[in-house]
C-alpha cells in the first residue's frame, strides 16, 4: 500500500498495464514528454519509450479514430482526451465506430480501447473545462462508461477498463484528482493522504466493472451518485443528520442494478445526485430504473439533484455546482413525505 492521489493512482494503473501487456500504448495531447496537463502520464514515456507513450495532434477525432484502427490491429490503446469538454469532435468515431464495430462485424473486428477524460467542475474552469457529458455515452449501446470517485477505485477501475474488450469511456472527476472534495469550496483543501481511500495497492489489482459500492451505509434514504457528488452527498448526510446510504455507482453503464435496488428496497427513499445538467441527464434513467424495480417500496417521490440546465458558468460556479446545501435540501424533502 502507498498513499496516492488520484493522479498517482491513475498513473500507477497505466504503469502496471504498460509493464504487463506489450499491446498497451498511451497517447493524447501533451501526454508524452510532458506527462499530460494533469501529469497523469508523467514519467511513462521515459520508462516505456516514445513508441508506447507519445504526443498526439490536437484532434480528438483522430486520437479516437486511430485508436480504433489500432484496436482492430490487436493493440489496447489508452488515449487521453484533455478535457471531456473537448470530446465532441470524436463523437462520431466513438458512437458510429468504436461502439458498433463488434456488432456490425459480428465479432470479426473489435475496438478494445479506453478513452480517458477529465470531467466535472469545481476548478474554476468555466464552460469549456467543467462539463459532465456522461449521459452522451451511457445512451450509446456498446460503450462502457466508468467514473471513479477515489484513488483506490480509480486504479482498479482503470486496469479493469484497459483489460476489458469493449470500448470504455473513463471519466475522471478532476476536482477529485488531488483530494476528496465535499463542495465546501471555502474551506481548506483536503489531501488524499488524509483519507483511507488514498491508500492504494502498488501492484496489479482490479475493481470489476458493473459493480457499485455502498460508500456509506445508512437506514433513512438511498443516494445514488458517482464521482465528486459522492463526497458532497456524504457531507450533506453529516450536516442534515439524515442517515443516508450512499451508493457510488463507479460503472455508470452497464451498471450494477442489484446493489441500488437492494438499497432502495431497504430504505424506501431515493435521491439521485449528479453534477451534469438535469434534463435527460443520467439521473432520469436512474429514476426510471428505481421506479420500475422498487415502486412498491417507495415511500416518497424520487428526488433528483443536478447541475442547472445552463452552460457551466465561470463566475457563478458555486451557485451552479450542486453543493451540500442543495443536496441536503433534497434529503429533507425525501424524508418529509
Amino acid at each position, binding site marked *: 500500500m502507498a498513499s496516492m492521489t488520484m493522479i498517482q493512482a491513475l498513473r500507477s494503473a497505466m504503469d502496471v498495464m504498460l509493464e504487463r501487456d506489450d499491446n498497451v500504448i498511451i497517447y493524447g495531447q501533451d501526454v508524452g514528454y510532458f506527462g499530460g496537463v494533469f501529469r497523469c502520464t508523467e514519467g511513462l514515456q521515459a520508462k516505456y519509450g516514445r513508441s508506447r507513450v507519445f504526443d498526439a495532434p490536437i484532434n480528438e477525432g483522430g486520437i479516437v479514430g486511430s485508436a480504433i*484502427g489500432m484496436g482492430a490491429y490487436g493493440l489496447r490503446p489508452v488515449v487521453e482526451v484533455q478535457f471531456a469538454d473537448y470530446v465532441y469532435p470524436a463523437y462520431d468515431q466513438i458512437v458510429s465506430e468504436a461502439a458498433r464495430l463488434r456488432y456490425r*462485424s459480428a465479432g470479426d473486428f473489435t475496438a478494445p480501447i479506453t478513452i480517458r477524460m477529465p470531467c466535472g467542475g469545481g476548478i474554476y474552469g468555466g464552460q469549456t473545462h467543467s462539463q459532465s457529458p456522461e449521459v452522451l455515452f451511457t445512451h450509446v449501446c456498446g460503450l462502457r462508461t466508468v467514473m471513479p470517485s477515489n484513488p483506490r477505485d480509480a486504479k482498479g477501475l482503470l486496469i479493469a477498463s484497459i483489460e476489458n474488450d469493449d470500448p470504455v469511456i473513463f471519466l475522471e472527476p478532476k476536482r477529485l484528482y488531488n483530494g476528496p472534495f465535499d463542495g465546501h469550496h471555502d474551506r481548506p483543501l483536503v489531501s488524499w493522504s488524509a483519507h483511507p481511500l488514498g491508500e492504494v495497492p502498488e501492484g496489479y489489482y482490479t475493481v470489476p466493472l458493473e459493480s457499485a459500492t455502498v460508500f456509506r451505509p445508512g437506514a433513512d434514504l438511498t443516494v445514488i451518485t458517482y464521482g465528486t457528488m459522492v463526497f458532497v452527498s456524504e457531507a450533506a448526510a453529516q450536516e442534515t443528520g439524515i442517515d443516508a446510504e450512499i451508493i457510488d455507482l463507479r460503472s455508470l453503464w*452497464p451498471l450494477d442494478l442489484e446493489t441500488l435496488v437492494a438499497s432502495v428496497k431497504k430504505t424506501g427513499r431515493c435521491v439521485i445526485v449528479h453534477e451534469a445538467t438535469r434534463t435527460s441527464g443520467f439521473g432520469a434513467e436512474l429514476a426510471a430504473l428505481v421506479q420500475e424495480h422498487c415502486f412498491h417500496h417507495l415511500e416518497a417521490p424520487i428526488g433528483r439533484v443536478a447541475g442547472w440546465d445552463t452552460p457551466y458558468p465561470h463566475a457563478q460556479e458555486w451557485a451552479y455546482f450542486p453543493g451540500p446545501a442543495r443536496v441536503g435540501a433534497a434529503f429533507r424533502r425525501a424524508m418529509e413525505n
Partner: protein
Amino acid sequence: MSQGASLRLHVPEPTGRPGHETDFSYLHLSRAGEVRKPPIDASPADTSDLAYTLVRVLDDEGRAVGPWAPEADPELLRRGLRAMMKTRAFDARMLIAQRQKKISFYIQCLGEEAIATGHALVLQQGDMCFPTYRQQGLLLARDDVTLLELTCELMSNERDPLKGRQLPVCYSMKRAGFFSISGNLATQFIQAVGWGMASAIKGDTRIASGWIGDGATAESDFHTALTFAHVYRAPVILNVVNNQWAISTFQAIAGGEATTFAARGVGCGIASLRVDGNDFLAVLAASRWAAQRARSNLGPTLIEWVTYRAGAHSTSDDPSRYRPADDWAHFPLGDPIPRLAQHLTAIGAWSPQEHAQTQADMEAQVNTALKEAERFGSMADGHVAGAATMFEDVYKDMPEHLKRQREQLSSEG
C-alpha cells in the same frame, strides 16, 4: 457605398448536365508514358508535379509505355482481367437480384473495377484494407473469398456471416484483409492510419490501405488521416477514388475544382500521385510504388485514382436526373476492361474467344453462387438470423439489461 464590384458566391457546377454533353477537359489529362517516375525514396515535396499530372501506362493502342510501365507477368495481368470481369459480372447479376427483391439494396462499381482489383494483387496476405462500399473488387480479386459468402451477406440470410446486421455490400472479412465497412463516410480513413501505426509500433511488416471517395474527402476525418499519417510516417496507402460523383454532387463541390485531390497530400507532407484509375497497368505500378514506400519506412502515399462512376450511386439512385445519360461513353479514360484486354491481346496473351469464354464462365459462377445462396433463404422470405441474435455482440459478454430485453422479446414480442 463601396466602389468595388458586388461580391458573388461561387457554387461550382459540372460542365455537363442532362441535355448537354460534359466537357471533360477539366480533367487535365497527361499522355500515356509522359509522367516521370521518381525514386522510391523521393521526398514528398519531390512528388508535387505528380499530384497535378496523371500517371498513365496504356496508350490508345494498348501499348504499355513510359517509366511507370510495370514489370508484370502476363499471367498476373490475365488474373487481373479475370478479376475485373468477375467483379462486373457479379455486380450486374446482383443489380438484377435487387430488382427481383432477392436483396434489399446494392452498390455496383461499374467502370472502377481496375482500381480495387489491381491494388489487391499488389497487397500481401496480412495487409489490411479499410474500404468504402465500392471496393468489392478487393474481395473479388482474391482466391480465398467465395462468391457464396458474399452473396449470403447480400441476401441477409441464415448464412450471412454478419447475421443480418448490416446493409448489403457492407462486408467485413478480417481473414481477407478487409475491414468492416461502416456506411458512415470517411471514418475508416483515420482508422487505416491507426492500423498502420499499430503495425509500426509492433515492428511488424504489414501495411494498411485506406479508401475514400472524392466526395468524402470533404469530411474532417480525411484531413485528420493525412495529418496523422504524416506525423507518424504511418505505413499506409491513402487511396482517393475520384469517380467524379458523390450521389448527385459533382467532385467540384468536394473541392476538386482548379486543383486535385492528390494535391491535398503534398500539402500535408505526403508523397502523392494522381493516377489513371482505368489503366490496370498504372494501378499496378502506382500501388507497388506506394506499397514499397510503406514497407520501407518511407511513410504514407496518397493516390488519387481518376475514374468515373459509370453506374448509379446505388440501387436507390437515378443519375440521368443530374448528368448526361451517356456521360461514361465520352469519359476520356474509357473502360478498364477493354483497355487491359486490348493490351493482353496485343502481347498475345488474350483473345476475343477467351474473353467470351471468360465472360460466360464468370456469369455461370455468379449464377451458381446466387442459386446456392438462395437455398439459405433471404430477408424477403424471413430466413434470417433469429431475432434473439440481435442482442449478441453489442458487448463481448452480454450485460444483464440486454439479457432482460432478450427475455422480454421472447415472451412479449
